[in-house]
């Protein structure tokens, strides 16, 4: 696909492929440009929100128009640097969703609203751009750029909370550890480049098939890249930043981080693992199995001991990465890549909805920027806010994997993928961990409904946040019951990955 003449190195098709992303980026810059033009006054947050959500919607619309007709097909652009296939399209929508909703949360939320909302929104959109790059990248170096774009914006976003101490500390921790992990991953990229000669995924897949048993430099590269991905999706032992950063960041940012980052990174991770060759390295399978098991276990057992609701959700997010990793391992090391990848994507989708809703609720409960929501603060809420209470119940039950919610089907498909590949050990630990997780997922419910009532706090009338929470809860149930169409869609998106 190398161009013959320098002049046609960017074709119309290339431009179209990134058009949604580009348009989104450009629209999101409008408020940013308006600000200095209007004499550096703060813009009305509503305007900013409208522009940015509008950008997301326009991007979604464009994605539908441009890629919709050929959904499930596959094409590459920019000299193989990016690939537009079903996953790209599907995950683009997810990214739009997890960008739009946290934006609304941020609009409502006390720690992000007001000053610098323009910049905040722009950075969030930019981070989303990074994710879009990440999910469509077909080249490790593009992946790396995507990760960096996404992460660098996030470092700033975390710091941008109006909360003074914890958010800054969290941002700095996140930054240092993130860069540290990036460097490690980059080292892996370098080794892969050195052994394969390029960093295109297809070349690496071929390299995996050929070299994984023979070339130790190559294998080292693979391991380091995997660990780089593992950091972003917080796999043990690279998960340690997660609770701290999630707690320190303002809740809308946490919602954004915990969903979008994970989803986008997992897609790239999945692409990276898309080679039959991995099956030749059983020791890699063993180690990754252990990482998955430990991730689930550490996430769950640590969550049990937490009292801060955000930390509970943070650890839950760690353990959920473990579950997704179960599917990922099945995809990478099993014979049925597509099936397992579908399960991972489905899981990510379910996880995203549930987590967005949960953090939305947390956001709703925070009265000022310094509030840290303890689980016990939920007392009496079930009575006073029956709909929100019910929404939280549904979300928690879904996270715990109680049927017929989306969370159940997510777990079901992931465990199916593992069992299909005879990875009983993984499935077994997944199940054991589900049981452990029940304890802390049920605690908010216990507190809400079953503790002695106290006068519940008055919640702000954040209509967007409330809407998002309720919608998430409804979606978790409805899409759980209608998981077949969703699954079919995901499956169709995966079908042409090879």
């Amino acid at each position, binding site marked *: 696909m190398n161009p013959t003449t320098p002049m046609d190195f960017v074709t119309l098709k290339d431009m179209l492929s990134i058009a949604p992303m580009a348009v989104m980026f450009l629209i999101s810059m409008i408020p940013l440009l308006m600000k200095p033009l209007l004499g550096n006054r703060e813009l009305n947050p509503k305007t900013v929100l409208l522009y940015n959500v509008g950008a997301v919607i326009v991007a979604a619309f464009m994605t539908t128009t441009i890629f919709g007709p050929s959904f499930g097909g596959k094409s590459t652009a920019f000299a193989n640097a990016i690939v537009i296939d079903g996953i790209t399209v599907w995950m683009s929508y997810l990214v739009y969703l997890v960008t739009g909703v946290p934006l609304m949360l941020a609009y409502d939320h006390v720690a992000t609203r007001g000053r610098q909302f323009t910049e905040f929104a722009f950075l969030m959109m930019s981070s989303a751009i990074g994710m879009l790059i990440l999910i469509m990248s077909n080249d490790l170096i593009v992946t790396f750029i995507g990760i960096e774009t996404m992460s660098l914006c996030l470092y700033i976003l975390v710091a941008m909370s109006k909360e003074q101490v914890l958010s800054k500390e969290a941002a*700095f*921790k996140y930054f*240092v*550890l993130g860069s*540290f*992990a990036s460097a*490690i991953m980059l080292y892996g990229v370098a080794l892969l480049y050195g052994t394969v000669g390029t960093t295109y995924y297809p070349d690496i897949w071929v390299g995996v098939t050929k070299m994984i048993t023979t070339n*130790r430099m190559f*294998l*080292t590269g693979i*391991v*380091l890249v995997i*660990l780089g991905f*593992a*950091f972003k999706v917080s796999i*043990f*032992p*690279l998960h*340690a*930043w997660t*609770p*701290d950063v999630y707690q320190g960041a303002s809740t809308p940012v946490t919602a954004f981080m915990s969903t979008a980052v994970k989803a986008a990174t997992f897609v790239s991770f999945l692409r990276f693992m898309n080679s039959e060759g991995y099956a030749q*390295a059983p*020791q*890699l399978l*063993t*180690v990754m199995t252990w*990482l998955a098991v430990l991730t689930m*276990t*550490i996430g769950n*057992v*640590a*969550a*049990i*001991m*937490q009292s801060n609701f955000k930390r509970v959700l943070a650890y839950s997010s760690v353990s959920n990465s473990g579950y997704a990793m179960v599917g990922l391992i099945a995809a990478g090391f099993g014979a049925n890549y597509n099936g397992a990848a579908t399960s991972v994507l489905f899981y990510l989708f379910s996880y995203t909805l549930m987590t967005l809703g949960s953090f939305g609720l947390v956001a709703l409960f925070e009265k000022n920027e310094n509030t840290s929501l303890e689980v016990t603060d939920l007392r009496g809420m079930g009575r006073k806010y029956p709909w929100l209470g019910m929404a939280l119940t549904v979300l928690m039950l879904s996270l715990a994997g109680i049927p017929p919610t989306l969370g159940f089907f997510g777990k079901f498909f992931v465990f199916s993928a593992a069992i299909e590949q005879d990875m009983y050990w993984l499935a077994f630990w997944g199940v054991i961990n589900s049981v*452990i997780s029940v*304890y802390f997922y049920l605690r908010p419910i216990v507190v809400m409904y079953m503790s002695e009532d106290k006068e519940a706090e008055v919640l702000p009338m954040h209509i967007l946040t409330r809407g998002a929470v309720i919608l998430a809860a409804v979606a978790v149930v409805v899409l759980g019951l209608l998981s077949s169409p969703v699954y079919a869609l995901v499956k169709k998106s995966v079908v042409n990955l090879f």
Partner: protein
Amino acid sequence: MSNTVLFAILLLAPLIGFLFNGLRWKSHNAYLAGTVATVAAGISFLCSVVLVSKLFGEGAVPAVSAKFYEWMAIGGFNVTAGFVIDHISAIMVLVVTGVGTLIHLFSIGYMSHDERPSKYFAYLNLFLFNMLLLILGENLLLMFVGWEGVGLCSYLLIGFWFSDSEKAAAGMKAFITNRIGDAGFLLGIFTIFFLFGTVNFQEIIGRVSGVPDLTWTGPVTLACLFLFIGATGKSAQIPLYVWLPDAMAGPTPVSALIHAATMVTAGVYMICRLNPLFLMAPNVLNVIAIIGAATAVMAATIGLTQWDIKKVLAYSTVSQLGYMFLACGVGAFGAAMFHLMTHAFFKALMFLGSGSVIHAMEGEQDIRKMGHLKKYLPITHATFFIGWVAIIGMPPFAGFFSKDEILWKAFTSPHGHILLWLAGVIGAVCTAFYMTRLMALTFWGKSRVPESVHPHESPPSMSIPLIILAVLSVVGGWIGIPHALGAILPGHPGNWLEHWLHGVILEPAAHGAHPSATLELALMGVSVSLAALSALLAYNFYVTNPERPAQFVSKIRGLYELVYNKYFVDEFYFARIINPLIDASKGMWAYIDVNFIDKTTYAVSDVVRGMGSAAKSFQNGNLQQYAMYIALGVAVTMFLILR
């Protein structure tokens, strides 16, 4: 009327009586309740007479039966709610409904001052219904229904005055002890079903093979053994007899009906019902005989020492039931049925008599506080006297014939043994002694009645049953006059009963020389004279020289204490079975449930929490520590993958 309708009336009459009285259980009207109940029982009696009459005379059928509906049908297990009166159940049904009616009648007077007479009569009718189920059921399962049903009624009636903890406990004890037997009965049913593929009596008997099962674990032996366990429970044999004396806590007519005349004989009835089967299990027969004999002697000795009028009668009942089992055990099922019948008459009579006494004494049951009551209670005394003569086996009263047949069979039957006979005789001697003692202390001698009590004769509703039963106690035995005696009596009366039961009750095949009539007469003489001597001795003790018993007792203090305390059997059960069981249960609850299973679960959760704490402590907030985890992850992963 067709058999079906008759059977329906026979069974439903008491049930309707039960419902009638049960639904107006708050009523205090003893006369209405009693009348309804008595009429219901009377109707049953009439129906049974009509039905039994069909077994007689021209066109006699071997059995009348009626089938109502299919109760259960699962796989090969089909049980019909069908009823049958044959030659065995005919005796039983007449005794039960007849004596039952009389006792109902008696109860009207006896319970007239009670708070809840309706409830009482409702229970009594319910009992009658269940007893009829037991007797008439055409299969083992229906018998079991009645079997448990009478147990339930017994439980309710013993605990009738439930405010008294002791009485409630007695009811419970009765039910639970019976349940132990019932469990055996159940196993017996199973064994029989899987042995013969049916639980219908007719079919079982039809399928019994003629080869005796000489093993201990063969199916026939096991079946009989299980059924016998059931019988020991219901019929108060060793080791399950302990409930019966306590059951005297119930109203006295109940003791008469349930704990003397009818229910407690159900075990004997059941064994007789299945006599062809039991004959095929000689080992079990031996067990039955030994248990029966032992019970007869043991209960009789306990009876020697009791002071409570009803307790004495209760132990006497146990002892007499022992005789019946002894009869069954030596294969003399006819004799057992015979004694069952005569015992029903005289023991019901005596219980009702004692009821009359208690009624007169305003509830006092201790015979030490009675004496010379014949002055106040002439009818009671007269009828009680007849009962006394009957039970100590004086000819020509009913008890003589039946008891003597049992002793004779114990001596001569192929399953018999001289020791069994001896035990029977010892039992008879003891019986004569304690019954005379009872008579003497209650009716004769000096009055020891407290000043406050003014004994008075009972109303006619109570006397009439007494009189009828007294007549029956006299003539009841004449249907089974032994051949040896018949031969020397005028008119040469035959053994009608034996003839009647011929065909439904098999006799064990005799071997060796046919025992002579002379021997029979001699043995008869021995036992009767010994009993008479014993009675005289008792008279001497308690009427002539009232101070002698105490002197005598002081000489055999230890033995007396042992017997007086009923050989400490109850205490043994409590100390060795019940209390350990309760302690064990508490221990199990504490150690298995609370301490082991729950603690294990807690331990698991503690492990999880411990891991959580560990995970938490690793999360110490230090950025460089986190970086170290990453580096460690890199190092370890690389090491593991690339080694």
